[in-house]
């Protein structure tokens, strides 16, 4: 049988200062699936995403496409799992768009033509072709967000994890970004407060609260549970509350 895209077995993590962040996480994500992770502020959503590619390591097992996340597999894992950070300013850390998108492929020591091709393809996928020489500082927020996605796409990952992909975007940029996101064939994990987004994209949703998985299930069912949502400082999305579409 094909191994799942992501397999997490009893993962726990505490920050170096001793603050516990995740406790006994067990999780399976099938290949090609789009999964939502919802939960209140400070639930540990971002921390969990950081474990998918091993930049944070906790106690327990994380397996990606059948590979154990450890030092030995680090490079392979980083290529397989792309992380789109909440704040594009964190992800775009070089002076130009080209250098930002080329950073990953360069670290993989691809040959120059391959890097150029990957940068071009990645920028085209997010509708930012021709922006290579622009400085990242002077892009609009929506553009920065799309270039952030391109920096990840340049490595052609099998799994892409998004941290609050739609926060701070105006409604049009949000819709644009979602359309780019939907077109991606990769397995997607989306951590967000934007429950409408989860409803739109994710078949399966996980509710994370206080560093543990409270429950998981079919998205409409889970998000429609008023008592559960309000207990964890969430709200039933309007489109669901107003009855079936």
């Amino acid at each position: 049988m094909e191994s799942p895209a992501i397999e997490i077995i009893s993962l726990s993590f505490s920050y170096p200062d001793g603050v516990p962040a995740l406790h006994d996480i067990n999780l399976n994500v099938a290949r090609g699936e789009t999964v939502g992770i919802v939960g209140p502020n400070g639930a540990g959503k971002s921390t969990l995403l950081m474990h998918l590619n091993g930049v944070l390591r906790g106690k327990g097992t994380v397996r990606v496409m059948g590979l154990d996340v450890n030092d030995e597999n680090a490079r392979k894992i980083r290529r397989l799992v792309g992380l789109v950070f909440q704040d594009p300013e964190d992800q775009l850390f070089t002076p130009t768009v080209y250098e930002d998108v080329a950073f990953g492929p360069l670290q993989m020591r691809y040959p120059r033509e391959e890097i150029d091709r990957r940068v071009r393809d990645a920028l085209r996928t997010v509708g930012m072709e021709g922006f290579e020489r622009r400085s990242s500082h002077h892009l609009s927020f929506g553009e920065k967000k799309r270039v952030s996605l391109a920096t990840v796409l340049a490595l052609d990952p099998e799994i892409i994890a998004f941290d609050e992909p739609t926060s701070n975007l105006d409604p049009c940029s949000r819709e644009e970004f979602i359309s780019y996101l939907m077109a991606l064939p990769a397995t997607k994990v989306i951590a967000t407060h934007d429950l409408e987004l989860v409803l739109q994209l994710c078949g399966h949703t996980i509710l994370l609260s206080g560093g543990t998985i409270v429950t998981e299930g079919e998205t409409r069912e889970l998000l429609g549970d008023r008592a559960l949502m309000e207990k964890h400082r969430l709200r039933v999305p309007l489109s669901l509350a107003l009855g079936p579409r």
Partner: protein
Amino acid sequence: MHRTDARVKCVACVCCVLLIVTTPATAVLSFTGYALILLALLAVSRVPILHIVRRTLAVMPFVLLIAACLPFIKRGEVMWSVAWGGWTLAVTRDGLRLFWGVFVKSSLSIFCVALLTATTRFDCLLRGMESLRCPRLVVMLLSFLYRYAFLFSDDLMRMLRAKRSRSFRPARSEARILAGMLGMLFVRSYERAERVYLAMCSRGFDGTIVTPGRPALGAADLALSGGVIACFAAARLAGGIW
């Protein structure tokens, strides 16, 4: 000139500055030559002259310091003196020569560097430095500074505006508030650095910085910088002293 390869511009700029600072102060002809060449380059590059003049003002504090020293250089022939009570202030030829030399050299050097940075985007300049074997780590640090400095100064402006919107006039504890703001900014920049590190690791960063190869140099680029350096060297020779 804006399109010329950054590498040859860097090399030309460094050569010209070296020639300028090592020219003896008495070689007036050389300095005139340098100024004419630079003015010609300025005209070709269409950089506004005001930009250059403004940059030259940066040397003023130092020029003033040297000017203050003038009356104290006792050697040489006295050019001009004031007697005031029991004191005599005298300016000697040697002193004036020193003042002139320092002033003209620093202004021309600033002219050179300002011309370079006005015609070269900073990211191209960094790539150029890198191909010229400037350590990658240094280039990377410079590019981080360039990327985040303006983000932080925007942050600072926002904090200042937020402070102003809550206070009418400069408070007695103004300095303390401003220092707190810088403290806050540092905490934020530290957290930013942590997240940037995670973002770098996520894309395969393992402690070594990899950079793309260098493209070949065009003949026109080489000719331009070679020409500029040659003109400078000619001006230097014309001054009669090598």
